[in-house]
């Protein structure tokens, strides 16, 4: 199945990706998906403890299982508000 993946802030710079489409097997968790990217982009792994995950614009646990056409976002620590 296919999911949309969004990268923000420093994660966008580390991967060179703002948005990607990933083909993943059924039963894939957000954590699994992140691991496939950290194999491609080694510097991502160091960011893992500080980031939060969202699915379809809501915060979710990294154990959440993906569904077809989900929108996943990897969110580094926020710094809005001056």
């Amino acid at each position, binding site marked *: 199945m296919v999911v949309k993946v969004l990268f923000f802030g*420093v994660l966008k710079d580390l991967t060179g990706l703002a948005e990607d489409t990933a083909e993943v097997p059924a039963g894939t968790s957000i954590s699994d998906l992140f691991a496939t990217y950290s194999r491609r982009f080694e510097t991502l792994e160091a960011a893992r403890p500080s980031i939060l995950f969202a699915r379809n614009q809501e915060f979710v646990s990294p154990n959440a299982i993906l569904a077809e056409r989900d929108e996943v976002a990897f*969110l580094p620590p926020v710094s809005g508000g*001056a």
Partner: protein
Amino acid sequence: MTGDEPKFLAEIRCDGHFFALTRSPIDSQALARELLRGEDGAVVVFEGVVRNNTKGRPTRFLEYECYESMALRQMEQIGMEIAQAHALGRISIVHRLGRLEIGEASVSVVVTAPHRQAAFQAALEGINRLKREVPIWKKEHFEDGAVWVEGEWDETLRAGQKTGR
């Protein structure tokens, strides 16, 4: 500015409260006039402003980006929770995106209420929660390079237990 540009990139109005993202300067006074009701006796306007240095290192300018759809939803959720928790009139939360110069407001929280204490508390809570719960990021540009500033998440969001929906 041509005057034809939309004032807000995205906005939500709910029960008189207002939440928006914009690429244009924020007019907090106009927001306050719009929010104020006859029974309100207090208006608190908080603006977060771009300062000219970070720990003594001169800042040239800032750049803000966000996860637009999620940021707006989070701002609405925070605002509605605050409106329910305090004796308010109304609240607005607006964040600006793109390049901002020193002295410009990146964020505005405006609260109206019958009395001052609720207005002050709500405004403080609004900016404090925004800084830890809304997916917005700032890149700080110095003379010799730029860095993404990493603040911190509200850790209770981590397991998805504070989504409130």
